[in-house]
């Protein structure tokens, strides 16, 4: 239903020997969206995002409330995310947009639903995280400067 309708009359100018489409034809095909239509589209999109977000949020809370589900969630959620990510890469059009939207919404929901756990994990492993971060910065800085200097020399 999102595919543009094909109207052969748009190309009548070709059979008439005129290589330039008439201005009237291009103007006639320009859809005129009213403000109320923009409102419905906007709220519809945010409602869809909110639905996926809420689903992820609820699922996450339920898993947290029932610890026996954690192993299954740990397996299923990354697997589902991987499958959906591959699908988003392979498909095109509205399906791609919708799968990407689901990935973003659910990932956001997982972060939001477990922020305290993430916070506790970060606090607990702060020393390790800081060390890892320092190593990462040092490594990337060294590599970056080397590459940059080599590039400048070549010029």
């Amino acid at each position, binding site marked *: 239903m999102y595919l543009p309708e094909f109207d052969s009359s748009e190309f009548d100018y070709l059979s008439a020997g005129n290589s330039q489409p008439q201005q009237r034809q291009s103007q006639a095909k320009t859809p005129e969206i009213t403000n109320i239509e923009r409102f*419905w589209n906007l709220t519809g999109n945010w409602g869809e995002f909110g639905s996926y977000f*809420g689903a992820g949020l609820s699922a996450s809370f339920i898993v947290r409330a029932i610890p026996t589900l954690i192993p299954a969630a740990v397996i299923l959620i990354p697997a589902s995310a991987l499958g959906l990510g591959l699908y988003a890469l392979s498909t095109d059009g509205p399906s791609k947009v919708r799968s990407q939207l689901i990935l973003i919404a659910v990932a956001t929901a997982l972060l939001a639903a477990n922020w305290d756990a993430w916070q506790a994990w970060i606090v*607990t492993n702060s020393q390790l995280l800081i060390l890892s971060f320092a190593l990462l910065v040092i490594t990337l800085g060294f590599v970056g400067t080397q590459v940059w200097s080599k590039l400048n020399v070549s010029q």
Partner: protein
Amino acid sequence: MLANKNQVIVSGLLALGVAGFAVATALQFNDRIEYRIGNRIESNPAWLVPPKAEFKSVERGYGGLKILLALLGTGGMVTVMLIARNEAEQEPIRQKIKGYQNQAYEFSHAAESAYQMAKTQMEYKKLLEADEVAFEGEIETAYCESLGIDPSQQQAALTGTATLDSATNPGDKVTDATSLAIEPDRTQGPKMPNLSKYPSLLIYGIPGAGKSTLTEQEVAKRLKEGHLVIVCDPHAAYGAWEGCEVIGAGMDYEAIDAKLAWFQKKIKWRYEVISRQPDPTFQPLTLVVEEFTNLSKRCNNSGSHFQTVNSDIRKAECYSVIVSHTRNLAGLGDAKGMGALRDESMLEVEVLGEYNEQTERATPRFEALVKMPGQSLTDRTLVKLAKNSSPGVENLAPKPMLSDLTLGTPGTLKIPSKQEAPNAGTPYGIRGEHISGMLADILAGTLETAVFSLDSDLEQDEKLELAKLIIAEELGLEKTIWLLWGVRRGGRNHTLYTEARAMLDRLIKGE
């Protein structure tokens, strides 16, 4: 301005959903244990509490509430999504419907405009037709003048059994004596409307149809109702129109013209009174204009009179009766361009005549076609006229009778009255069977020649005796002259009629 109530619902649910998610996210899920470890006091979930920690207190988490809020928020968001998607699909359809409605309004407006244009066109068409009728009248007048015929005396139309031969003497009149000679008739079917209730009345018909008789009856009725009646009659006989002010007798068209102007001033004066006084009362004033056909070229005020009586007179208690040979505008006071006014304002009565083989003249059919104001000419009602007079209306038509002129007048010949000579078969003087039979034939209308006609084979003495017997019948001035000399008042024989009347006077006086 909200175009759709679902906008409120969607907006509200979206806000509540976001708020629910925010609250559900912000609250802590698990119970937290506050503990002391060394000199520090910390708070963590149970699984993060170090084994050496000294328990201090427990902070309850809101896991259940968070789940509930998350589910409610999810439901709200799903609802928002469904409603918004549905509305997004419906909205283009609504826009199309709105566009179609606008087009329909435009078409309706265009149709209304087209209707108004068509209506205007019809009005102009009517005006054009009225002008064409006036033009036809002009052509008719020019044609009659080219033939040497007075257009005012031209027969307007042949109706009923009338033929062209019946109009050979268009100046002839029908007197009330003619109707008196016929038995009264109880008419059936549609009745004549109360003519005195209509401000503008037009009586027309071919000569001899009975216009004057009907007019006289109407005048008498109005006199009885308290009208002040003024009659403009260029052919008025002496003593005619009793009870009325008679203007223009002897073809005094200047006097008639002046009276028409006076009538208009009278109307104006009455309206001035109406404008000044709260509830003025006027005596009803009726202006009868006989032979209106003759006025078009002779009276300058005829056209304005025609317009006035058809537009301005009702509230002023003024009434108009116009007697004409025709209803076309050229014959109605030269009232060109007022055809629509005539059709909408006048009550028109066409008095019908028919050809009488015995008299070879038009005689009344005692029928009339009545066109109410605004009625189509094709929808006229055929009304039977009483052969004597209308029921309930006395025949008050003032006619000078011979008895009025002679009986009891010193020095004049005494004509025996009807009572004195009840039997026509026993006349005084020469009382022969021949005279009696002729008298009966004359009274019955079967004798075609007049008594004093050159074609009559009677002796002079017989003519005189027969004349006396006819005079004794008191048939009325006009009928008596008709039977004796065969001429009628008005028309081209009017001069003969005047002479005949003089001779009748002399005969009555015994000369």
